């Protein structure tokens, strides 16, 4: 009796695992398919660039406040922490480089992407999920208008364009925050702060690589948000789960991709 109960339990666990795995693979395939369709229909949205500009306003401009404020605080904290450590080694002049490199190479793209997923990604998922639940996407289909061309593709390109711009602004404001803490507050030499930064931040290995990261994160976050919305069951519960998944999946994707990209960019 106990044996058979145990067996049933084991079978159930195995079946669950199998179910989760096939579901995951299926969703990955469905996501890839949506991505391909988005690429195919992108031409149509670029011909009507005003639609993309409108979406850049919603995803990019509306995210500015959270991005700028966070960047400023992250920069100030970097200034404080950096100075605290660097002064032990007598190299507090290098604080400018430290702040700039941390932001441009890592924190700018990564933190912006995490905030972007929380601010713009969730909005995209909820909007598309609700458009689906209220049959707006079906209505579009029945009017012989492809929802992928009209709804998905413009939002995708808006996200991909907005992300690097937001990351650049994040780094800029962060450097300003670091400067305010290091120079006027702590009293690090202003000339050393800027000149060290200028001398040691490289165009290719630091800035271009940072931009590449933010573009990749932009593609990942926007596509995940779009897919979750498009794939959401058309119910209140379905949309709420999809929104949660957007944040979780995007965050994990960003951190995972960051490691992969960094390991390609740094020659050990």
């Amino acid at each position, binding site marked *: 009796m106990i044996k058979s109960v145990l067996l049933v339990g084991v079978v159930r666990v195995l079946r669950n695992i199998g179910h989760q795995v096939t579901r995951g693979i299926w969703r990955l395939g469905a996501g890839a398919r949506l991505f391909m369709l988005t690429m195919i229909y992108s031409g149509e949205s670029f011909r009507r660039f005003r639609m993309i500009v409108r979406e850049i306003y919603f995803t990019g401009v509306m995210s500015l406040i959270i991005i700028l404020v966070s960047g400023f605080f992250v920069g100030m904290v970097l200034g404080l922490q950096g100075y605290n450590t660097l002064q032990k080694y007598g190299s507090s002049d290098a604080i400018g480089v430290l702040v700039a490199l941390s932001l441009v190479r890592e924190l700018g793209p990564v933190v912006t992407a995490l905030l972007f997923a929380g601010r713009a990604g969730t909005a995209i998922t909820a909007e598309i999920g609700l*458009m689906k639940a*209220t*049959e*707006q996407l*079906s*209505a579009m*289909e*029945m*009017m*012989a*208008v492809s929802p992928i061309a*009209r709804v998905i593709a413009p939002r995708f390109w808006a996200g991909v364009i907005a992300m690097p711009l937001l990351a650049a602004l994040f780094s800029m404001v962060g450097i300003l925050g670091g400067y305010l803490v290091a120079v006027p507050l702590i009293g690090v030499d202003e000339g050393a702060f800027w000149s060290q930064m200028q001398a040691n931040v490289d165009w290719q290995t630091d800035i271009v690589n940072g931009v590449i990261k933010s573009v990749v994160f932009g593609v990942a976050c926007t596509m995940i948000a779009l897919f979750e919305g498009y794939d959401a069951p058309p119910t209140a519960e379905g949309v709420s789960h999809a929104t949660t998944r957007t944040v979780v999946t995007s965050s994990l994707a960003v951190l995972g991709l960051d490691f992969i990209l960094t390991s390609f960019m740094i020659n050990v």
Partner: protein
Amino acid sequence: MTSNIVEIDNLSFGYKGRMLHQGINMAFPRGKVIAIMGGSGSGKTTLLRLIGGQIKPSKGQVRVDGKVVHHQDRTGIYQLRRKMGMLFQHGALFTDLSVFENVAFPIREHTNLPESMIHDVVLMKLNAVGLRGAHKLMPTELSGGMARRVALARAIALDPAILMYDEPFAGLDPISMSVICDLIRTLNDALGATSIVVTHDVEETFSFADYVYFVANGVVAAEGTPDDLRNSDLPFVHQFVYGEKDGPVPFHYAAGDYAQDLLGFEG
């Protein structure tokens, strides 16, 4: 040109192992208003989706204007859909666009008309449903009945040959209901279109429909003019038309023995 604009031949459709339709035959002659009636969950709305090519039949076929819908590629289906206008159950208006822009949407997508002409066409369509004065409002500012009329104006924006209505009366007050009833008939006759109305409201439907199909258990259970059906002695039709609580469609969902269910509680 065949006399039927839409023909459904021996159509079967199902998903997840459950057959929703099993061998349905229907014909929709040009210029007529035809109602598809049946209880909730009998697959009436699915029929509209099959006609619109949003899903494919498991067996049989749907022909629109002589063309088999599921044999068309995407371009072919989109070409067929341009002949159709569909009114969704709750209107499905685009919530980020104003009433004017909602009606203008299909015109902007499919034509290159100058702005002045779009303006005139949109106001004419809105006038036809009595909402010209509401063109600046947003969908959230409309009542349920008004939203459905705007959606109707959008559905007729490109003068479709086929008008499909998915539960046009659901959740409407009696005044809005009779307004929509009236519009279905007058728009059909004014546009020279064919209307397919999916509904379960007997009285309203019988007042304007030319022909009625009853769908039950995946087949056409009965068909005829409203008068034929009123006088039908088929038990199902009688129960449906007169709204009787019990009959061939039982009040209780299929269940085991009542006493057994109550006594068999094991915690």
